[in-house]
């Protein structure tokens, strides 16, 4: 996030410490303490996993802790990706990654990541047009991005929301899908195609002509929706970019970094939980961690997470210091984090034996968040496919 370079404590040396300086360290430590105190696993379970039938059979929306969210806003986390000019207190991308990693570790249901993603996109739109919206975000308005068609293509150019000029604004028609935390968002940052190009428009959740159709998903800690636009009017002041694809693509490395950070946090919880279980659960007269069939997979999970976290902070630092190379690094981080999280989830359920397979244990909450997160913006193999074109060159 280029804006952070003006204020990050560490931009100059970012290639040595990933831009993770004192400010970022302090921020991460606060986040870790705060969530540890305010959002223990028991609270999570109570909040999202108290009644399986409610969510899965009756399709009721999973709840999130709005009171906790207010505290998060008060701590200024929603301003961390907002330039000072818009009332934010930006930190290095590595600092954002660390906070998001902590929310992943606590499987926190919240619009934080989505709101950060919206800020990242707005940061790469026209500054004057974007500023008021960024100011709103800095002061607690929630937001999320809507860039994906209903086949789940991650190519911005595939967007299927049509924008037709109307006065000095536009009318929007069409569909965009896989919108994260839609039920928690006040604003949608929407990529739309015009006859000649693409625009980015900001749409209020209560706008006329917008239907938010919630998806029925496995993940208990997120919500996801499909947005239907029916001749929805966008005023000129809500058009924040007239070069939409470029704006989305400029923000994309940051979006991938946030997704990877969440997965690293999720994987870390799975690892620590499984390690503890393997240390205490006795079978065949030994704690099961005694057996290499348990110990070695846990070590492999550790190695995968270590790799993913290193690539994560490396990518984060490049978003700040060397945007040209950030996309490849971010894809590596997302690929490694997706694979680490799904392997960690897999081994967690397997090594917990019967109990991990039941609703009585919390593993399923993280298993589903990992499964959801690895699919978002493309899983490990998808990222590698994109990387191959950079690394090896296109197929002749």
């Amino acid at each position, binding site marked *: 996030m280029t804006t952070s370079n003006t204020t990050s404590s560490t931009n100059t040396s970012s290639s040595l410490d990933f831009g993770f300086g004192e400010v970022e360290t302090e921020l991460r430590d606060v986040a870790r303490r705060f969530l540890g105190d305010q959002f223990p696993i028991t609270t999570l379970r109570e909040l999202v996993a108290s009644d399986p*039938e409610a969510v899965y059979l009756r399709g009721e929306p999973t709840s999130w802790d709005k009171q906790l969210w207010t505290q998060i806003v008060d701590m200024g986390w929603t301003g961390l990706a907002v330039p000072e000019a818009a009332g934010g207190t930006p930190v290095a991308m590595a600092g954002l990654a660390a906070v998001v990693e902590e929310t992943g570790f606590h499987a926190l249901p919240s619009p934080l990541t989505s709101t950060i993603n919206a800020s990242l996109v707005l940061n790469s739109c026209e500054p004057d047009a974007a500023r008021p919206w960024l100011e709103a975000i800095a002061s607690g308005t929630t937001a999320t991005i809507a860039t994906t068609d209903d086949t789940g293509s991650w190519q911005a150019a595939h967007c299927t929301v049509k924008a037709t000029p109307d006065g000095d604004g536009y009318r929007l028609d069409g569909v965009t899908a896989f919108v994260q935390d839609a039920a928690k968002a006040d604003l949608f940052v929407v990529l739309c195609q015009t006859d000649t190009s693409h625009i980015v428009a900001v749409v209020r959740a209560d706008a006329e002509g917008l239907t938010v159709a919630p*998806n*029925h998903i496995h993940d208990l800690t997120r919500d996801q929706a499909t947005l239907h636009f029916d001749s929805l009017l966008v005023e000129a002041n809500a058009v924040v970019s007239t070069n939409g694809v470029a704006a989305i693509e400029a923000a994309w490395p940051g979006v991938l970094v946030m997704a990877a950070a969440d997965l690293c946090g999720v994987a870390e919880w799975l690892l620590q939980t499984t390690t503890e279980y393997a240390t205490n659960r006795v*079978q065949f007269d030994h704690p099961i961690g005694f*057996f290499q069939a348990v110990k070695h997979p846990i070590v492999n999970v550790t190695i995968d997470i270590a790799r993913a976290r290193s690539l994560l902070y490396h990518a984060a630092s490049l978003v700040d210091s060397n945007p040209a190379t950030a996309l490849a690094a971010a894809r590596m981080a997302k690929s490694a984090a997706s694979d680490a999280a799904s392997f960690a989830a897999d081994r967690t*359920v397997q090594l917990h034996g019967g109990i991990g397979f039941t609703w*009585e244990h919390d593993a399923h909450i993280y298993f589903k968040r990992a*499964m959801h997160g690895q699919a978002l913006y493309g899983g490990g193999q998808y990222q590698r496919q994109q990387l191959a074109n950079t690394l090896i060159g296109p197929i002749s």
Partner: protein
Amino acid sequence: MKEQTLTADQADFQRYVRQWIEDNRPPAPPSRLPISALEVTNQAQHDYLQQWQGQAYEAGLIGCDYPTEYGGGGREGCQRIANRELSRAGVPYFLNIIGLGMAAPTILVHGTHEQKTEFIPGALSGEDVWCQGFSEPDAGSDLANQRTRAVRDGDQWIVNGHKVWTSHGHFAKWMILIARTSQDHKYEGLSYFLCPIAGHEGVTVRPLVKMTGESGFNEITFDDVVVPHANLLGGEGNGWAVAMTTLSSERGATEGAGSSGTNPRLTVQKLVDLARSTMRDGRPASDDPVIRDAIVQHAIIAEGLNQNAKRSKVAALTSHPMRVPLRSKVTSSEFRQSAARLGVEIAGPLSTLYKNDPNAPDAGHWPLAYMNSYGSTIAAGTSEVQRNILGERVLGLPKSK
């Protein structure tokens, strides 16, 4: 993949089955059926499926290869034909999956004439629903580590203990039960009982919720439960041997259920169809050679499972020291798991959708199948323990404990 050559009788039977299914398609179920019979929990679906199984049994589509004296069709090599036709027709699976796939085959091998006469027909017709009592909370992965005790008392046994993972426990009339009848020997101290469940005194059934949010399996406690000696299967102290028969029939079971989720070849076909119908950045996933390679890897494993089963019947080609694992639980359960995981990856963002979402591919099969697959890699001896057993009993490696 290719047909196997049929005898004249088998060809006739195939035509008959096709015709019968055409003429007797059941009506739509009362509500959307879960992915396999093991997840069925509501009474209306239970009754619907039981009735359908009864019809198919009367028509001779179930138990085709069982002797007629035990309520079977007395045919040869016809069950796989019936199963294939049932899968192809996409009709509902049969309810009594444990009875068909585990209880009946085991009783046929180890039962007395009386036991076969008493238990097999009801298992085939679905009138008697069965459940499995192998797993225990403290036994964990170690199937032989049974704590449930049965003590001989005249011509009956008194059972006390605690079983988990018992699918259909809430419907079941009978349970195939392993209990410890002697403390002196680990394996030889086990015996195998056909134990009454529904409404039987001292039996308590408590439903458990799975990670998917579905119920469908239970824990069952036994408090001085009386089982007649006549219900001991295979003789006292032979429980381990009898249980091995049951576990080796497990694949047959899931096939018999006609669920495309568990027949390896059909699983591969399902993956191919998913890849063809899923778009990735505007192109069908079936055009992505990495996904093609992964699907073919599974096709090879699937064909391997089928040919392993076939080779295990050819004595001259099983003289190798490692013939036993060919039919082992570990390969088929891990195949199911990795195939389901691959399905989740192919589905991409669509894999986030629960089965009730109208856009969920294959009615939400893949993520649910993936989560449920841990049932098969954990229950009745985890894959880790299976590998110990293979290493120690097949290859003669030193015991790991």
